[in-house]
């Protein structure tokens, strides 16, 4: 089904955007990694969010989620891998699925972690970001999974299930990928494995990788007062747009981005 607005990221910015799309009575889907893998989940105590002093990160996320659910926001667990703009709509791929919407709110937080040596050169030549997409091409062969959370572990067992021989690297400090023309091995924290494929399952994607041509400034997504980016129908909010990296700022920007995206969908949607 096609939505008015699709939100990438289920943190404070994305959820705030989503309830404000619902306030305009538009359909909205939030695509995000599991809540427990959000950075805010690790916050022991938050004292600077108005009205909720002393709240823990998990409490805050649960409360925000419940609010969004009650407002009629739809949710999909998973990671957005690619986007594409075609004939007035945005198409977004999530594992083996695809969804579309008239407008997008990018609220993926900060994407930590630099690329590994060899990653860029060997992307598509054995380096993959999508286990469900490329796993089948490596049945019966040795592969490595570099994972950062439970969802990566699930993908590793999916790969084992279809017959890949998996070496799992959990949250390595540093890795490098070797091979000429195609992946031959990976070394993480001093341990080397000979593999045909490396699945890099980071929780986030760099905004410019999700949206080719997206303008950034100082490493953050460039937005105007309406939270519009340089791409048609793409709005951004929260940590991904820059400092300060704080919940209240993310929620405020989410409100603006949600309203802007809803208005854009009304003007440019397919008349729903």
């Amino acid at each position, binding site marked *: 089904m096609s939505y008015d607005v699709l939100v990438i990221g289920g943190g404070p910015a994305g959820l705030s955007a989503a309830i404000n799309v619902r306030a305009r009575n538009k359909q909205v889907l939030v695509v995000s990694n599991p809540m427990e893998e959000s950075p805010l989940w690790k916050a022991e105590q938050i004292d600077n969010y108005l009205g909720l002093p002393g709240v823990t990160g998990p409490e805050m996320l649960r409360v925000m989620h419940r609010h969004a659910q009650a407002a009629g926001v739809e949710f999909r667990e998973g990671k957005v*891998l690619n986007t594409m703009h075609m004939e007035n709509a945005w198409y977004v*791929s999530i594992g083996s699925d695809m969804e579309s919407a008239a407008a997008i709110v990018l609220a993926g937080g900060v994407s930590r972690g630099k690329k590994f040596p060899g990653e860029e050169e060997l*992307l598509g030549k054995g380096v993959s970001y999508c286990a469900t997409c490329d796993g089948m091409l490596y049945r019966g062969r040795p592969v490595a999974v570099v994972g950062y959370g439970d969802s990566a572990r699930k993908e590793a067992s999916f790969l084992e299930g279809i017959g890949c021989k998996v070496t799992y690297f959990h949250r390595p400090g540093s890795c490098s990928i070797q091979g000429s023309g195609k992946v031959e091995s990976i070394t993480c924290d001093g341990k080397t494995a000979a593999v045909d494929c490396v699945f890099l399952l980071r929780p986030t994607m760099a905004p410019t990788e999700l949206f080719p041509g997206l303008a950034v400034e100082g490493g953050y997504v460039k937005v105007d007062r309406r939270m519009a980016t340089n791409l048609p129908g793409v709005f951004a909010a929260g940590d991904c747009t820059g400092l300060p990296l704080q919940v209240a700022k993310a929620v405020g920007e989410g409100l603006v981005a949600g309203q802007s995206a809803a208005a854009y969908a009304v003007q440019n949607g397919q008349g729903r």
Partner: protein
Amino acid sequence: MAVKALKTAEFDGAIQGSHVAVVDFWADWCGPCKMVSPVIDGLEKAYGDRVLVAKVNVDDEHELAARFGVSSIPTVIFFRDGAEVERKIGVQTAGVYQAILEANL
């Protein structure tokens, strides 16, 4: 005409039988492939009279996927007079594929 789904047995004949061909290697389980699919349909509409626009399901045609060293999907391979001239791995916009076709017509 619809985009032609090529099987292993007919592949070489089809590719050699057309001056320029573009082949989309895809599978059902791949979300990014679903995004590329309508773009390939668009190529068929615009170039179908001059170019063979085809797709190969890598799940059904392991042999072809292995022979062309397809290591990530979607992979779109361009052929001219039966020989590979270029390939694009991952999701690309229509303009990228069109430019390659224009350069090889």
